[in-house]
């Protein structure tokens, strides 16, 4: 069984300040972990993906996430928020080996103010 908990339903930041979106996971096996972003009226877009290579994963648009097995966490960060980062972010878990569906968290809405 696998599950994901996104600790904040909403995060508000000012443009130019750091972003931290928190995610904890539970998985019986070695997980693959993802962050997807969903802009209004747009499809889900993959930001980054962890599959047991480097624990610090760099994604698109300056985002990165660090896999911490001891903390079962996969938090998403960005050094400096941009207005265009305002969207909903989903942390997702699946199994690394073999077929597995994606299990999504409930999402974190990132609000960026000027």
């Amino acid at each position, binding site marked *: 069984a696998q599950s994901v908990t996104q600790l904040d339903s909403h995060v508000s930041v000012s443009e130019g300040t750091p972003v931290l979106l928190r995610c904890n996971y539970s998985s019986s096996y070695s997980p693959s972990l993802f962050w997807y972003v969903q802009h209004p009226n747009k*499809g*889900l877009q993959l930001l980054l993906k962890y599959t047991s290579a480097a624990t610090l994963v760099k994604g698109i648009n300056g985002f990165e996430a660090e896999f911490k097995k001891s903390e079962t966490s996969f938090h998403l960060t960005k050094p400096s928020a941009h207005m265009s980062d305002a969207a909903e972010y*989903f942390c997702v878990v699946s199994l690394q080996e*073999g077929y597995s569906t*994606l299990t999504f968290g409930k*999402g974190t809405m990132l609000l960026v103010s000027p």
Partner: protein
Amino acid sequence: GAGVSQTPSNKVTEKGKYVELRCDPISGHTALYWYRQSLGQGPEFLIYFQGTGAADDSGLPNDRFFAVRPEGSVSTLKIQRTERGDSAVYLCASSLAASGDTQYFGPGTRLTVL
């Protein structure tokens, strides 16, 4: 190249009616997935196709829901005797194969049952 497309983008129907939602995956992708996203929630898995066959339909909520992929490309999600609780955004995703491959999502179909 072209991404995953879904039609219609919006569908409004009355309780008890039958609806069909269509998904065109990325060309060459053998794996196709359907998810349902209710308001304020992350997407939830419905069904997965590998080629023409439904490899996992464990997420379908009941026997009013059915999906087909007769030629291993386009898929149709069919909902009989719709209920107000079926209102949601229905998302389709495709991947090159299944195990560990990135899933690419379409923009979704917003279904509203009155």
